[in-house]
């Protein structure tokens, strides 16, 4: 591994101009950051890596003024900065796009940007609009200026966030897992935008990501955090993904589960959807028929927005069907409500973990949310039993959290593990799993995939919806491809080639 000083000439970026030194931050017992130092340069893409809970978000929140460090200092060009709020950070030229967007959903793009950049009381929306159009051409970030934010797909909302940060004049831009919420096409165009920002607008970009391929592709410098410490910070060329993974997790074996023969041959399907129709203005489902057998993983592939979300929602019971039937173990459900589906043995991991859990509640409370009554003796909650249940889940699923921690303070990966623990601890007959590894680090990803494989071996019927085609191909026994609200084709997992599936995803059937 090269040291930073040794190869400074080869660096693409300018001289370091923001120094974070000896930053320490603890939340109660948890030390999120201990004595972390890092420097940032303009005209450089600086990737920040680390396992879930390593402290990446915390470090960037400190730089952006969203939280205060217990000790340590931030300097810009030799001058100590006092960053008490995002406003201070923006004044110092630092912008951030957080994992959760901070846009006002029912306002237009221009109005949202005006909120962030308008300085005076008089609001001249026309001039803001001109500025938005100018900036979006300049940075290659096309946005529809008069569209209502809530009507835009997530990729465009993210562009608005980036544009907003750039237009408030930042020379450093922090992006916290920007690609985690995007589909493959959007990821490519975002990476292009980032490269362009670095080379043409001379912006220093801090990119937090768990995806090695992206980092290899665009990072100039890579820093790795492990358990709140910087374990390496160096130029990116010459480092392999393998080395980075070792740096992130230390020397340990990854728990890869080998694929075994499908257990499902000749068994009757346990989940059967028959000609299901959901009518909606945009999207909806159009005559979907699908079945999943016990011990089988059926993967759903497709360009996002072709009915995957609706499919998951009718199986979680939050979207009712207009016609067709859903049957579990041969019994047709009279109605697809969450309660009936759960009683029938359908478990769920939703695509949006924030919508699946209650942030303000404790980990152990969230863990029993779908079976509160099992943890109440008469009406009194049995907190001791909940605690034991939670602690065993924390052990079994390697969750980095304490039982009584408030769920909202967990790192993304650990939130996901809690939700998986909730799903599997009920031993569902059918598990609907949507985007299970979104935002998860490499180790957690392979761990979660091994959990899904294990559930399959235990005879659970798994319906896996994922935008990550590699994930679908790795796990699924059969791949069903969705196109415009229907299942356009089902391919056997063993014979599934990317090409064949790619064609189906584009709507081409032969």
């Amino acid at each position, binding site marked *: 591994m090269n040291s930073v000083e040794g190869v400074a000439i080869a660096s693409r970026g300018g001289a370091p101009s923001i120094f974070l030194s000896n930053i320490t931050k603890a939340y109660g017992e948890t030390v999120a950051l201990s004595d972390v130092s890092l420097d940032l340069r303009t005209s450089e893409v600086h990737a920040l890596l680390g396992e879930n809970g390593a402290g990446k978000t915390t470090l960037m929140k400190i730089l952006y003024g969203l939280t205060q460090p217990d000790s340590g200092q931030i300097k810009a060009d030799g001058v100590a900065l006092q960053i008490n709020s995002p406003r201070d950070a923006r004044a110092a030229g630092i912008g951030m796009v957080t994992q959760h967007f901070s846009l006002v959903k029912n306002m237009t793009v221009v109005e949202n940007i005006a909120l962030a950049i308008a300085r005076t009381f008089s609001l001249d929306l026309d001039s803001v609009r001109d500025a938005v159009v100018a900036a979006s051409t300049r940075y290659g970030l096309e946005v529809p200026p008069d569209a209502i934010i809530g009507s835009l797909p997530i990729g465009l909302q993210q562009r608005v966030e980036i544009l907003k940060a750039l237009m408030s004049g930042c020379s450093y831009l922090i992006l916290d897992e920007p690609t985690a919420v995007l589909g493959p096409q959007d990821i490519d165009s975002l990476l292009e935008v980032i490269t362009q920002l670095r080379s043409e607008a001379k912006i220093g970009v801090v990119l937090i990501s768990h995806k090695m391929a992206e980092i290899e592709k665009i990072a100039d410098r890579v820093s790795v955090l492990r358990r709140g410490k910087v374990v390496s910070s160096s130029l990116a060329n010459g480092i392999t993904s393998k080395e980075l993974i070792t740096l992130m997790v230390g020397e340990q074996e990854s728990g890869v589960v080998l694929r075994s023969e499908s257990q499902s041959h000749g068994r009757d399907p346990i989940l059967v959807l028959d000609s299901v129709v959901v009518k909606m203005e945009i999207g909806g489902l159009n005559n979907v028929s699908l079945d999943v057998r016990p011990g089988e993983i059926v993967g759903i592939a497709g360009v996002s927005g072709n009915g995957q979300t609706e499919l998951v929602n009718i199986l979680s019971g939050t979207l009712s069907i207009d016609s067709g039937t859903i049957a579990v173990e041969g019994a047709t459900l009279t109605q697809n409500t969450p309660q009936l589906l759960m009683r029938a043995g359908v478990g769920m991991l939703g695509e949006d973990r924030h919508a699946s859990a209650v942030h*303000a509640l404790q980990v152990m409370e969230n863990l029993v*949310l779908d079976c509160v009554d099992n943890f109440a003796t008469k009406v009194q909650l049995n907190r001791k039993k909940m605690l034991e249940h939670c602690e065993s889940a924390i052990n079994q699923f390697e969750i980095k959290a304490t039982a009584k921690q408030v769920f909202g303070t967990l790192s993304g990966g650990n939130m996901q593990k809690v939700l998986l623990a909730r799903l599997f601890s009920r031993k569902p007959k059918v598990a609907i799993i949507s985007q299970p590894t979104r935002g998860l680090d490499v180790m957690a990803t392979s761990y979660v995939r091994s959990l899904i494989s294990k559930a399959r071996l235990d005879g659970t019927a798994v319906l896996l919806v994922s935008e990550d085609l590699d994930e679908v191909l790795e796990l699924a026994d059969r791949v069903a491809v969705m196109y415009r609200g229907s299942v356009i084709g089902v391919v056997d997992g063993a014979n599934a080639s990317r090409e064949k599936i790619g064609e189906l995803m584009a709507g081409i059937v032969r």
Partner: protein
Amino acid sequence: MIDITQEIIGSSLRIATPLALAALGELVTEKSGVLNLGIEGIMYGSAFVGIATAAQTGSLSAGLFAGFITGAVAGLIFAFATVTLGVNQHVAGLGLTLFMISFCNTANRIIFTSDGGQVRVDPWQPFNFGGPIFSQYWMTYATFLIAVPFTWWLLWRSGLGLKIRAVGENPEAADVAGIGVAKTRYTAIIIGSLLMAAGGAFITLAFVGTFTINIINGRGWVALALVIFGRWKIGRLLAGAALFSVVNAGQLQLRLLPSFSDVPFEILLALPFLAVIIGLAVSGRNVPYPGAYLKPYKRL
């Protein structure tokens, strides 16, 4: 001096009783994500129906029971409007309050005051366990020894409480987890209304033994403010109730002093409200509202 301090504490507890009951009721309701502005009206209705029933039957307990029924029915109507129909919570709550107040005033006029009289009962008498502090109505003892711990237990230690807090923070997540959002909110609203009704009935059946126009006199709104002041925590909520009541009891004592005879009594009367406003201004910023506060929930 000792005497007057004891007097003030004793009378504070009495003053705090209806406030605490109503605020606990509002707390349970709001924890489920619903703001019940019908609080003032529910107290008013139960105060009137309570004493009217007691006067007719000659039984204070029957009066209290009738007050509870009033609260439950009002809560049910409010829940139907806000949870089932999705009516704006401000509108439904204020509407309920306005309706209850004018309905009770009219009924009072027709039944009791048309011949110039007034409804009267012999109210509950305090139990004296020694000293002014421990000379309280049974409902005051019940409030602080039963209702307060019960509400705490309900919200933070019972299965229902976990469901209430979950639907109040994130109804989507609760729904997916199989918790009936509507059912839980109905339950919270009705439990809350019963507590508010107890607060209203206390005023006529114990405190004064009669009913006059405007008898609740904004106590419901004070209770509402106490919930925010208390940041949805029982301890802080009670501290707020104590502050209001002590200032109120204090000003009542001051009015008796000769040196204060020149001060217009309205100024003294306003003091406790001023205390709540200042308290709110100090603590009302960055309040951790329940995540789904004011949001009706409907599946897609």
